[in-house]
């Protein structure tokens, strides 16, 4: 063994030597990437990961085959003789014409097929047609005696078919229960035959040698899906999709989540890991990315195997016909998968971070698995849609979004809310995990250590941590809907004015109460943590000028946006305005003022200060503005979407004022005066609310310009 000495650097360490410059933020990204690479290479070399990757499909396919059987039962498929499609008619003529058309269609299809060998249908699943005449076909449909009601009002014109003398065009209407797999299969079957018949007729007509005139029968098809009553007849494939995705991502994420947290402790690497000067949040984020990656990988392997199974078993042809796998749908499916993985990986990590061993971690996970199946099953209930409060219920919102996507598309804006709120929850869960991971209690098996999680720091802090500030936001969403629900319950007890008092009180609880609690537990200094530094007079005056002059423009923007959604919104608006007309203007002003002030305390106060310590100003302004807009959408109820643009824009203005003035006060002045005027102006100045006059707009523009100048030059002197 050779012993070298290098006293010069040895006693100093790299940190103080010229070798190691302070890491820049780019280095931080690079380091994060390397952390992820290490975790990934370790986890992917583990035999157990590979087993999960392969074992999963084996576990899943029995389940899937049960689902298929459900499905086959629902569509009355006899695997031996293929499915039977049941059609119901009101008259015999209609039945006869339909049968004749199907016969000709079948013949045309076969004539075509003998030429194009590639398209030959699987003989094993060749469907049968059953048909019947009913007094009340619609009732038979609802009783599940038939799959489709066929109505051909002018059927007599084409009867008998052989004696047709001229071309006839018939309207044919198919009525079926929306989402019924049997009906969708039947329709695809019928439409395929009709199309074959049409094209063969056309071909014959165009044949140059053909001299005899053959009258053609043209059928115009119209689908008429009717909403299902109760929908207890069958489980649709669409409702199963989210459950399958949940299972796939959970199973994929469980092992890496345990291994990367509880596993560290079990192998004795946790202590040396937390003895290194790396922020826990960075460590946990790298672990998170790794878990998401493995979960997505597992799910992808599964999707591919599932797809292969469907294709080669021949079931796919029947099952997936009505799903119609377009590239867009595949992309959406992948997006959903990512979303589920993003959610579960974060939740799993925060749970397993508490665990001190594999066994303990597994014990924590069982309740989670059971709890996750709840939303999966609730998601099958008809009538729920991703909207309003449901769009921010963790997990359930993703399940509903998945279902909506497969049942003909979801509202992209609500989808955005689902994605954003899920990301907020995931971020909160990771922040929690970072707090727990390597905490005394976990590291050294010690009971007193748990108190550490809520113990206040010994030193006062300049600002909250971003995770504490984000936790406030994550708690605000459920708290808001709980308070709103409470308010609705209590409403009959109070007069109209009390509604405003209640809503102001709720705002105080949400935007002041939560951050204040958080600031107390984080021992955050009030002055710096909320940005209470005193601003220059010029900045406050500028804030006031902006607050007094921006409202005509926002009002105009709102009127414009409202116009787009028209009557639906006008009704809501009218109801609100009636209420507002009745209330005293002082009360209204106080309500809107308080609301505005406490919103500022959180967004431009607590959140801004927390983020600003970790990111450049422009990024802080952007993030707070987006979150501000997002919150207004979610909390805005029926007006939600109309508020996204105005609120986000206001968020940018307010963020800029906060940054420029170095204080939250000008923002409060701005927001309060703006909110009061925006809500009272139509009444005070007797405006219609539909259109803002050019005079007001011009005055607003001038005022805004003056205000911006004042804020711009109102920068604190010491900076």
């Amino acid at each position, binding site marked *: *063994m*050779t*012993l*070298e*000495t*290098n*006293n010069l*650097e*040895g*006693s*100093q*360490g*790299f*940190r103080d030597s010229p*070798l*190691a410059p302070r*890491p820049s933020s780019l*280095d931080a990204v690079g*380091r994060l990437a*390397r*952390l992820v690479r*290490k975790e990934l*290479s*370790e*986890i992917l*070399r*583990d035999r157990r990961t590979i087993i999960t990757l392969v074992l999963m499909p084996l576990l899943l396919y029995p389940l899937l085959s049960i689902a298929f059987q459900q499905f086959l039962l629902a569509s009355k498929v006899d695997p031996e003789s293929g499915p039977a499609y049941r059609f119901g008619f009101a008259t015999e003529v209609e039945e006869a014409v339909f049968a004749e058309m199907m016969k000709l269609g079948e013949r045309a299809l076969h004539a075509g097929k003998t030429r194009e060998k590639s398209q030959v249908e699987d003989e094993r699943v060749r469907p049968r047609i059953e048909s019947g005449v009913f007094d009340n076909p619609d009732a038979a449909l609802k009783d599940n005696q038939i799959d489709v009601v066929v109505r051909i009002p002018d059927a007599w014109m084409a009867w008998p078919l052989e004696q047709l003398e001229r071309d006839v065009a018939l309207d044919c209407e198919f009525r079926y229960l929306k989402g019924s797999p049997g009906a969708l299969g039947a329709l695809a079957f019928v439409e395929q035959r009709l199309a074959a018949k049409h094209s063969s007729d056309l071909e014959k007509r165009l044949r140059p040698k053909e001299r005899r005139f053959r009258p053609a029968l043209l059928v115009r098809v119209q689908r008429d899906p009717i909403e299902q009553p109760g929908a207890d007849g069958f489980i649709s494939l669409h409702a199963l999709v989210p459950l399958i995705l949940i299972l796939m991502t959970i199973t994929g994420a469980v092992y890496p989540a345990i291994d990367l947290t509880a596993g560290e402790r079990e*192998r*004795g*690497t946790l*202590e*040396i*890991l*937390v*003895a*290194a*000067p*790396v922020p826990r949040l960075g460590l946990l984020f790298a672990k998170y990315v790794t878990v998401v990656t493995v979960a997505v990988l597992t799910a992808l392997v599964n999707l591919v195997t599932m797809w292969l199974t469907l294709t080669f078993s021949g079931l796919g042809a029947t099952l997936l016909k009505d799903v119609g796998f377009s590239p867009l749908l595949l992309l959406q499916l992948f997006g959903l998968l990512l979303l589920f993985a993003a959610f579960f990986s974060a939740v799993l990590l925060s749970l397993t971070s508490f665990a001190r061993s594999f066994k303990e971690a597994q014990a924590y996970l069982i309740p989670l698995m059971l709890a996750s199946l709840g939303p999966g099953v609730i998601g099958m209930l008809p009538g729920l849609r991703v909207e309003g409060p449901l769009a921010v219920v963790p997990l359930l919102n993703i399940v509903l979004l998945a279902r909506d996507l497969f049942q003909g598309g979801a509202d992209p804006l609500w989808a955005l809310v689902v994605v954003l709120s899920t990301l907020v929850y995931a971020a909160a869960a990771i922040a929690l995990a970072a707090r727990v991971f390597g905490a*005394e209690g976990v*590291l*050294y098996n*010690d*009971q*007193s250590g748990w108190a*550490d999680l809520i*113990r206040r720091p*010994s*030193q006062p802090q300049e600002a909250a941590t971003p995770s504490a500030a984000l936790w406030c936001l994550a708690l605000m969403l459920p708290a808001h809907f709980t308070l709103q629900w409470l308010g609705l319950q209590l409403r009959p007890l109070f007069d109209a004015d009390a509604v405003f008092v209640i809503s102001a009180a709720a705002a105080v609880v949400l935007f002041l109460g939560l951050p204040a609690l958080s600031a107390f537990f984080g021992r955050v200094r009030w002055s710096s943590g909320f940005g209470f530094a005193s601003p220059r007079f010029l900045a406050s005056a500028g804030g006031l000028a902006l607050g007094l002059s921006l409202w005509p423009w926002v009002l105009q923007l709102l009127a414009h946006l409202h116009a787009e959604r028209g009557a639906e919104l006008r009704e809501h608006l009218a109801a609100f305005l009636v209420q507002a007309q009745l209330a005293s203007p002082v009360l209204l002003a106080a309500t809107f003022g308080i609301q505005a002030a406490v919103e500022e305390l959180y967004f431009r106060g607590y959140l801004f200060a927390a983020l600003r310590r970790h990111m450049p100003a422009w990024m802080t302004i952007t993030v707070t503005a987006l979150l501000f807009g997002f919150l207004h959408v979610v909390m805005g109820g029926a007006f939600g979407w109309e508020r996204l643009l105005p609120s986000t824009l206001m968020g940018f203005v307010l963020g800029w004022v906060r940054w420029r003035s170095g204080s939250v006060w000008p923002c409060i002045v701005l927001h309060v005066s703006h909110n009061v005027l925006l809500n009272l102006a139509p009444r005070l100045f007797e405006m219609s609310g539909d259109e803002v006059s050019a005079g007001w707009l011009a005055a607003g523009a001038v005022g805004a310009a003056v205000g911006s100048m004042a804020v711009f030059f109102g920068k604190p002197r010491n900076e």
Partner: protein
Amino acid sequence: MIEVERLTKCFLLLGGRTLTAVNELSFTVRAGEVYGLLGPNGAGKTTTLRMLLGLLKPTSGQASIAGFGSSNHPDEVKRRVGLVSAGSGLYQGLTAREMLLFFADLYAVPPSAAFQELNRLSRLLGLDDFLEQRCATLSTGQRQRVNLARALIHRPPVMLLDEPTLGLDVLARQVVTEYIDHLRQEGKAVILTTHHLEEAERHCTRFGLLHKGQLVSEGTLADLQARTGCTTLMEMFLKLSKVGPALHEVNT
């Protein structure tokens, strides 16, 4: 370099009892010194080191390294410390080289410097043969060597060695012995905890005798000999901690 001032740690036990694992402990260690923190099992040695590193919060008192308090500036402290303890494990899925480079990265050592340091440590500790082997396949002795290298990869001026020879055979112990000599030559401030008194006698420049969380006596071997009249640490230890025969006599 290392300063410990009235450091105290109480653990809350099940049933509401509290246990004072470390009691008003004070000592300092300068660069170039190897300080032996000696005491029987349960004396509070490990707890002291954990508080020094900021992994445990002291109930009262403070510890600092190079002027940085371990509760206020944990990252500045961690950056300057290398930790070797009997319980440290390795990442089973990584090779020895990957493991070392990963830790270099954690300590933000620039890649080129990490590479150099890896080569130096590899020569120093004889890792060349198994550098590319997965840690899961290493022998106990080889693991210990990787661990010793891992603690030095960021060239910390302070080393905390918590029973580094626990469970090692004679050969592997020899490696640790030379390792400690090397640390002293490099002028690092070292704390070595052990209940192996001969080992401590060989390495340490100064000693602190810890018993039930309290520092019973402190000084160089000569100081201690003069003060107690005993010649070996073993005798001193028995005398100072007033330990009687381990097994009580039972009259039959």
